[in-house]
């Protein structure tokens, strides 16, 4: 018998576009281009994050006919058929982020932008003051901004006021694999902004951690390292896809409240002779 979903999982809506998958996957650090493509396919992700690099060589070398690294990647990622979400990784100032955003919009032909303004090298945590300012500028210029932020409620409020329709709080520092460092804050953020699309971005290391975020009611998960650096990235991509789906379905189904004391799952009414003598 096929299990039925308690509530059909609705589409993920991002700036007016609808997506089936709630898994956004990064494209960096894979062992090979082929594994990257296979991992994207196994993840079921509709959206893949990309970035910009200094172009070292020629576009196409006239002597060898070989494409530059940048053009090779461009050709590869287009094969995935995914929608691209360019980032401003490495930017530390508002000016850098805004100019990188414009370069990304022209190159990738999309108004979508994962906005990163990094404030600290060890934790790669966002400079939330710069982030809000950059978001305000870019939203006014027609960008559809996905800000990589902390779980701070006040910052979230200011990002929404700046024009963001999606927020991407971290679970824990980028690439750390620590999962949700502060589930309480993430829960508060979800409760405070029930109608805003919230995506946990960064720090997820295990499928169970992704499921935990989805069980809190988060709308989607963005991750990269946990798949790319896994022993078998393609299989891990599939594991995350299942966990994200399961977590979302569980949230829709309505979880029980945790309690301190035991509560018998077997009805006690009408118990035979051992009733009252203890036991499970």
């Amino acid at each position, binding site marked *: 018998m096929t299990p039925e979903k308690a509530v059909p999982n609705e589409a993920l809506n991002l700036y007016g576009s609808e997506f089936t998958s709630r898994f956004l996957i*990064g*494209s*960096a*650090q*894979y062992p090979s281009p082929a594994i*990257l493509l296979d991992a994207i396919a196994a993840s079921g992700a509709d959206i893949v*994050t*990309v*970035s*910009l*690099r*200094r*172009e*070292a*060589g*020629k*576009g*196409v*070398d*006239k002597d060898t006919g070989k494409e*530059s*690294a*940048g*053009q090779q*990647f*461009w050709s590869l*990622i287009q094969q995935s058929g995914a929608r691209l979400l*360019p*980032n401003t*990784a490495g930017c530390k100032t508002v*000016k*850098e982020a805004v*100019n990188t955003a*414009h*370069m*990304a919009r*022209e*190159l*990738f032909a999309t108004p979508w932008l994962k906005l990163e303004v990094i404030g600290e090298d060890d934790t790669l945590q966002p400079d939330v003051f710069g982030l809000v300012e950059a978001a305000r500028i870019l939203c006014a210029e027609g960008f559809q901004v996905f800000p990589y932020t902390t779980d701070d409620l006040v910052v979230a409020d200011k990002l929404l006021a700046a024009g963001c329709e999606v927020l991407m709080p971290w679970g824990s520092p*980028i*690439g750390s694999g620590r999962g949700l460092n502060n589930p309480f804050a993430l829960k508060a953020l979800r409760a405070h902004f029930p109608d805003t699309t919230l995506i946990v971005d960064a720090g997820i290391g295990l499928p169970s951690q992704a499921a935990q975020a989805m069980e809190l009611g988060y709308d989607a998960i963005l991750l*990269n*390292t946990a798949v790319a650096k896994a022993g078998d990235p393609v299989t891990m991509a599939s594991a995350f896809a299942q966990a994200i789906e399961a977590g979302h379905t569980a949230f829709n189904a309505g979880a029980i409240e945790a309690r301190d004391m035991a509560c018998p799952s077997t009805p006690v009414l009408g118990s035979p002779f051992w009733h009252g003598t203890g036991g499970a």
Partner: protein
Amino acid sequence: MKIHLNGASLDTEHNDLAALVAALGHEADKVATAIDGLFVARSARAQTPLHEGCAIEILAPMEGG
């Protein structure tokens, strides 16, 4: 004139950004450009003169998280 291209020194005889991009073998729509930290749109490259010591960035797609 001497300019900085993606962080490295370069001697060039080209006077504008579009000419430099073409001379380096890049297709115009396959790269994004900036001069002295400011984005220059594809359509504005031909009207963007290079100057002694300017910092040119020519960027292409890459992997990202």
